[in-house]
């Protein structure tokens, strides 16, 4: 056999000059030949360290081996045993911190492109037309799922496959949670979410949109409607602000508002779609995570001449995926590191016109081991801006929690749940995803949904035998 190539088979991308003017997906995917070539780099390690890096433990060497041999159908079946949303995970998992981080090939070069291969087979399957799954016999037992993000969708799908009668209650008018309203089209096309949701519906799951639990329907009403158990996957949707002077000026958005307008409401197609968005010439995005990267690249596509990131630490500490930081750089995003806003300055109409910032330096490592930024005295300076997006994190949305005071919360205000099962302080009520962990990842939310589905099944079997 020829020598193993040291680098990943490259994936074609939309050229920079084009993509900064549209919302189409940036990476274009592998051809079957490219996928098979990349798959042939895998050593098929017996102890498979990569599997330990995957939060849902996909049998990576096995599915890659099937791709290498051209058995794409087999490959997708192996993935689907552990991951019901592979087209999504293959695109948005932070592979460099998970499966690919552990890959043995890191010793000689780049790891196997596990995420790209996963995406390839998932897209290949979709092209064949997804088969109607074999539905199990109905048990006639109702389970409620609150929230249709990755945690809720996964829990619902798994429970339906076990024969439960599942209803998802979703607050917004459409499904997917952050997948739809947060992550932009150019990273995760909406048709992929539609496809996954269609599959969940094919499994018999009922989805009620415009149903805010705690408002439209109460917890008591859910129990009274005959639901026997509940999974809560309501996410961490409460936007945080810095509470500095001028933050309510016009032109300053939370990342949630900015991205929701563009993604869920399709403001990038305004005025064909009714929801407006206003993006000026100089846009500053505050923060250094995926949300900040998505916001700044969105601003660029909406016509910003200067789209910049203001981040209080250095590039090394940025929590965003490396791949996305690289793409942002290619797209001409300007980075101001070790910089933090201290106040916003407005004109007489209440529009933001400038941000005053202070320079930072890295001090001693904090509890998390990261060196915490400290302001350098008298280093303030101002930058002209006409749009600001605050992307400094989110907290638990209070609507459901207020309506369900019996639920025990942890000290950060998230639901206290058993990490193995998602069991909460209320019998029959399970929770998982961002509402338990705080903002995390798609795959960890899915993993939680899946573990809870199993635990709910065990709970209900016991309950119906009269054990509870």
């Amino acid at each position, binding site marked *: 056999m020829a020598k193993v190539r040291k680098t990943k088979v490259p994936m074609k991308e939309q050229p920079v000059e084009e993509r900064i003017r549209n919302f189409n997906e940036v990476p274009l995917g592998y051809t079957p030949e490219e996928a098979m070539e990349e798959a042939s780099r895998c050593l098929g390690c017996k102890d498979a360290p990569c599997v330990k890096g995957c939060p849902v433990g996909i049998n990576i060497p096995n599915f890659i081996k099937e791709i290498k041999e051209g058995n794409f159908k087999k490959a997708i079946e192996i993935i689907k045993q552990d991951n019901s949303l592979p087209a999504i995970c293959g695109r948005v998992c932070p592979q460099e911190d998970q499966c690919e981080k552990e890959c043995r090939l890191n010793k000689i070069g780049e790891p196997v492109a596990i995420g790209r291969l996963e995406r390839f087979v998932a897209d290949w399957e979709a092209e064949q037309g997804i088969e109607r799954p074999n539905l199990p016999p109905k048990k006639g037992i109702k389970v409620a799922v609150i929230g249709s993000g990755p945690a809720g969708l996964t829990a619902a799908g798994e429970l339906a496959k076990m024969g439960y009668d599942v209803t998802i209650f979703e*607050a*917004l*008018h459409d499904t997917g949670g952050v997948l739809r309203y947060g992550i932009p089209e150019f990273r995760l096309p909406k048709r992929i979410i539609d496809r996954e949701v269609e599959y969940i519906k094919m499994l018999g799951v009922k989805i009620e*949109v*415009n*149903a*805010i639990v705690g*408002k*439209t*329907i*109460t917890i008591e*009403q859910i129990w009274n409607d005959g639901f026997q158990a509940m999974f809560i996957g309501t996410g961490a*949707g*409460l*936007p945080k*602000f810095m*509470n500095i002077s001028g*933050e*309510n000026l*016009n*032109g300053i*958005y*939370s990342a*949630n*508002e900015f991205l*929701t*307008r563009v993604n869920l*409401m*399709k403001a990038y197609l*305004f*005025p*064909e*779609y*009714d*929801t*407006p*968005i*206003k993006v000026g010439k100089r846009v500053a995005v505050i923060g250094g995570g995926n949300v900040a990267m998505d916001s700044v690249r969105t601003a660029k596509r909406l016509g910003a001449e200067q789209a910049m990131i203001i981040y209080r630490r250095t590039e090394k500490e940025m929590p965003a995926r490396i791949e996305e930081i690289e793409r942002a750089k290619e797209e001409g995003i300007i980075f101001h590191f070790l910089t933090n806003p201290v106040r916003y300055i407005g004109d007489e*109409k*209440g529009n933001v016109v400038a941000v005053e910032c202070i320079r930072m330096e890295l001090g001693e490592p904090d509890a998390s081991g990261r060196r915490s930024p400290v302001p350098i005295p008298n280093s303030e300076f101002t930058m002209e801006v006409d749009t600001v997006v605050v992307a400094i994190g989110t907290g638990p*949305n*209070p*609507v459901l929690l207020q309506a369900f005071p019996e639920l025990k919360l942890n000290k950060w205000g998230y639901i206290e749940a058993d990490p193995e099962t998602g069991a909460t302080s209320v019998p029959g009520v399970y929770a998982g995803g961002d509402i338990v962990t705080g903002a995390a990842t798609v795959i960890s939310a899915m993993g939680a949904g899946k573990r809870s589905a199993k635990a709910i099944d065990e709970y209900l079997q016991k309950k119906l035998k009269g054990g509870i």
Partner: protein
Amino acid sequence: MYTILKSKALAPNIYEFTIRAPLVAKNAKAGQFVIVRIHEKGERIPLTIADFDKNEGTITIVFQVVGKTTHELSTLKEGDSLKDFVGPLGNPSEIERLGSVLVVGGGVGIAPIFPIARALKESGNHVIGIIGARSSDLLFWEDKVKEVCDELIVCTDDGSKGVKGFVTQAMEMVFKEKSDIKRCWAIGPLIMMKFATQVAKKYNVPITVSLNPIMVDGTGMCGACRCTVGGKTLFACSHGPEFDGTLVDFDELIKRGERFKEEEKIAWERYKSMKGGA
């Protein structure tokens, strides 16, 4: 889909719709609102629950045509339906037995004041109402509001009906005459609520106003609706929409309402030209 069961023009550019939405009606209370989206390409707009019928499973909304979406809404007929209709959102009004209370509705604010007046009346309060509009042809629901008030003052800016003057002048009259008013509610344009607050403050009567900033989700997820109340940033949809008027920064809210002025104009012009061509 949410069907429009009844539609009625109340005044020039003001419409009343009764919509089938049993789940919303089941839990609706005075002071809450809904978010409506007409069709797939539509925006989400908040409208106050002006009335509800739990048995029939209906919600009544009253809206004024001010731009593209409200205009498009006004063209819908009985039997048509809305794509999305979600609620009840926001916190209900705090209704308790206080004694004498004053409710003030200005313009399209007459509609949202009605369920509050009714709830106050049902809780055994002596309810004094003030409703006002620019002129008599813009007044509506006079009889409906009268039924749930012990006393009702009607005013118009031009004097074409009732007392001539703004609702704030009528408020002054009431406060001068009666010293036992325990609390008041005022709903209407921001500028009216701002001045109503000044009057109530002058007479030391606690005042509640219902804020209507630009919203997107209506559940506390986006922060579009943020406003400064008592020096703190709060979300009108999840912390409100009702707040102590004396704590609200009205000037900021008025500016925030203009955030998308240019875009609203573009949408409106485009809609008019398309309708014209059709």
